[in-house]
């Protein structure tokens, strides 16, 4: 490795517009990225990671976010002093960037080939033939299937992983020295994430580029980082070799972050049998989507294919599977938000899948839900008090009784009573999720369905909410159907997990049992793709040695 850093950031300060929660988005940040090195920047949401990355690309909205001090140098050239044209030449050619959302990072009305082509063209390659060859070459290099046809497609016709590869192809087209990746895999599922990470690693190895990688996933950090920079409130609180930071974090904030990372070894699974509360028997469900044709030929998606699953009293069952495998659909059938096409759903032995009207209304309080997006699940126009008690009152609970329950439940979820007169937007994400949980609990349900209930939350908040759910569940003896795509999260709370793949449940069992010996190939690939396993093993090893 050379001594001279590729990218050098020195005491960078970016001011926030007046009236923000703090003065600087990024304050006194210094870091170096050397050729062939991967520097990971971690930190909670809002800590200034993206702002820093955009500052390097000089892509900050100048009217709201101004660089007020410091230096950014790429191969010794001061980026902050460049005029617009030199900057333009630099972008794409000597530094490339990948953004988080592969869908929105591509122009929806331009074919992906054209978008790769454009970067070649604006940097001086006038020969269309040459460009075309290069586009195909790049796409092949990114392991995109059939580049010849794929390049004529539009972004929406590609899968998330493919789109992200196109974005990387654009960034890599001119073989820049520096690649900045701002959470490039957060929107992807684990298997795809693993592929993309492998791709970046390979490019880095073959081209010897420097990578500035932003993420909040310590598993990812453990897998790819040479160097780690931890940010909090716009400042760098810790920085060092990856192994150093991950194994012996110095700063309390870093320690907190690392502790919050869920680990498989904490799995709480138990296979104790209890009497069944909910039995799903051979349930199928398909969606009709209107197709084309003169009289609207319809096409069907089979979302659930003869699914069977039993949840016992007080048991928590995790439903795991990649996006689109039918998890949400199953949850909604259980909650009777959807009617099943065939099969039976028995709740306490009652065939609730047949119920309608009054009967259904009586069932409602017994099965409640915790939603993925804590904000979207709370009516922004209603005060918390109303949100929490409204349903209970409508189900016939006395107003005073509902209020009493609410106070009790708020205490359980750790919220102050003063919250009842506030609106949802006045709360943080974690608090909102607590409100959502309180709303479910006020109904005194027997079963709670949690659909990706913690996926939208920050790791540290995620940890809190998971703890809360565990506690509440144990205290009230609730059963739970816990839907997630994150194996680690599932391992924290589920007694058993069921793995879904293409509308079928391919495997069920305790987390330990499945992780030790996955029976189905899909389950195996799911476990393999989980990032940070080596690190987790190391940590476990170290801890065992300590003991």
């Amino acid at each position, binding site marked *: 490795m050379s001594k001279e850093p590729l990218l050098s950031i020195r005491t960078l300060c970016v001011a926030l517009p007046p009236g923000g929660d703090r003065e600087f988005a990024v304050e006194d940040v210094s870091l170096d990225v050397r050729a062939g090195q991967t520097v990971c920047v971690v930190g909670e949401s809002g800590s200034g990671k993206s702002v820093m990355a955009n500052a390097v690309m000089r892509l900050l909205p100048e009217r*709201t976010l101004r660089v007020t001090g410091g230096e950014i140098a790429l191969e010794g050239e001061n980026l902050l002093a460049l005029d617009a044209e030199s900057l333009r030449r630099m972008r794409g050619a000597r530094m490339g960037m990948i953004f988080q959302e592969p869908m929105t990072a591509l122009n929806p009305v331009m074919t992906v080939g054209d978008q790769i082509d454009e970067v070649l063209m604006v940097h001086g390659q006038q020969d269309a033939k040459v460009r075309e060859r290069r586009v195909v070459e790049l796409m092949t290099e990114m392991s995109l299937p059939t580049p010849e046809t794929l390049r004529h497609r539009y972004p929406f016709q590609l899968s998330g992983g493919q789109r992200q590869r196109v974005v990387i192809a654009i960034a890599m087209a001119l073989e820049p020295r520096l690649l900045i990746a701002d959470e490039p895999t957060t929107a992807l599922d684990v298997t795809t994430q693993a592929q993309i990470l492998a791709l970046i690693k390979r490019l880095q190895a073959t081209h010897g580029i420097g990578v500035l990688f932003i993420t909040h996933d310590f598993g990812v950090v453990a897998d790819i980082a040479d160097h780690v920079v931890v940010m909090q409130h716009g400042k760098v609180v810790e920085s060092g070799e990856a192994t150093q930071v991950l194994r012996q974090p110095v700063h309390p904030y870093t320690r907190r972050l690392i502790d919050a990372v869920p680990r498989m070894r904490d799995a709480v699974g138990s296979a104790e049998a209890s009497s069944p509360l909910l039995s799903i028997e051979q349930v199928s469900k398909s969606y009709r989507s209107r197709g084309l044709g003169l009289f609207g030929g319809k096409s069907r998606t089979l979302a659930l294919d003869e699914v069977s699953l039993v949840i016992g009293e007080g048991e928590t069952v995790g439903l795991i599977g990649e996006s689109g495998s039918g998890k949400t659909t199953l949850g909604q059938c259980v909650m009777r938000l959807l009617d099943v096409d065939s099969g039976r759903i028995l709740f306490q032995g009652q065939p609730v899948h047949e119920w309608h009207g009054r009967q259904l209304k009586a069932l409602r309080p017994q099965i409640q839900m915790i939603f993925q*997006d804590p904000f979207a699940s709370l009516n922004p126009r209603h005060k918390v008090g109303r949100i929490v008690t409204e349903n209970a009152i409508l189900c016939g609970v006395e107003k005073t009784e509902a209020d009493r329950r609410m106070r009790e439940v708020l205490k359980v979820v750790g919220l102050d009573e003063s919250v009842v007169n506030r609106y949802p937007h006045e709360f943080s994400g974690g608090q909102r999720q607590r409100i959502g949980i309180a*709303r479910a609990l006020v109904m005194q349900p027997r079963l709670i369905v949690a659909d990706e209930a913690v996926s939208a939350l920050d790791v540290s908040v995620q940890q809190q909410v998971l703890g809360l759910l565990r506690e509440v569940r144990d205290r009230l003896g609730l059963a739970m159907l816990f839907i997630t795509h994150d194996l680690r999260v599932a391992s924290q709370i589920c007694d058993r997990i069921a793995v879904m793949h293409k509308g079928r449940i391919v495997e069920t069992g305790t987390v330990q049992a499945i992780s030790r010996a996955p029976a189905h190939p899909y389950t195996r690939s799911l476990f393999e793709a989980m990032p940070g396993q080596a690190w987790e093993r190391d940590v476990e090893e170290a801890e065992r040695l300590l003991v």
Partner: protein
Amino acid sequence: MKDLLSRLLRQPAGIAGATMLAFIMLVAVGAHWLYPGDPWSMVADPNLPPFSPGYPFGTDMLGRDVAAGVAHGARVSLLIGFVATLVAVSVGTVLGAVAGYHGGWVDDSIMRFTEIFQTIPGFLLALLMVAIFGPSMYSIVGAIGVISWPSVARLVRAEFLSLRTRDFVKAAVLGGQSDLRIVFRQILPNTLSPIVVAASLMMATAILLESAISFLGLGDRSMISWGFMIGAGRTTLLQSWWLSAIPGAAIFVTVLGLNFLGDALNHALSPRRRGHS
């Protein structure tokens, strides 16, 4: 609410719009006090130019005070704009809400119905209706309402389509709430801001439509409105320009005010307020 007001008034457009409308409203409310009596009465020599003593806006062909007409006309024009908007918004909201919430064949048939009304050139339909029921305040208000509701219905439907998939609606379903309650208590309040914005702009359009109907000679002759004044005064454009220019200016100020206010509201209510203001 207070928050909204302050956000509204933090924008120049909001201040301008509010000021213009407040002024016009003040004139409308104070018309009886400013110009007591009947604005139709012939009080002075005909065709006095503006700034004549006692008649700042001059008089018309029959010696009626233009200022009194403008003041009283403010009441009628604002009323027509308001009521027509109310009609359009209520019809449009109900139909849009039902279509958007219910979906399926109900949505389909309501949307076809809406399409029919959007396919007929609106202004012609309005003229036809005014001709049928005779030019009167009611027929004009009704006609403007009839041609305006489809856009509200589409707007509300689109909002409902997106809101009904939101989790808080599911939460309400799980709480056993009835459809009616969900529509009116959960979803509708959340569509209020786009409706309010649309309504402010629609009111402006309604005032303009009324003036266009009057221009073509189908105005209500028993109510003095700005539209009527322009319609009646436009033939004198080359002779006594003020007869149509002054009510024209009044419409201009009001419509501009409503548009500014609508813009400002839009801005104040939109969630992505950061960045450009």
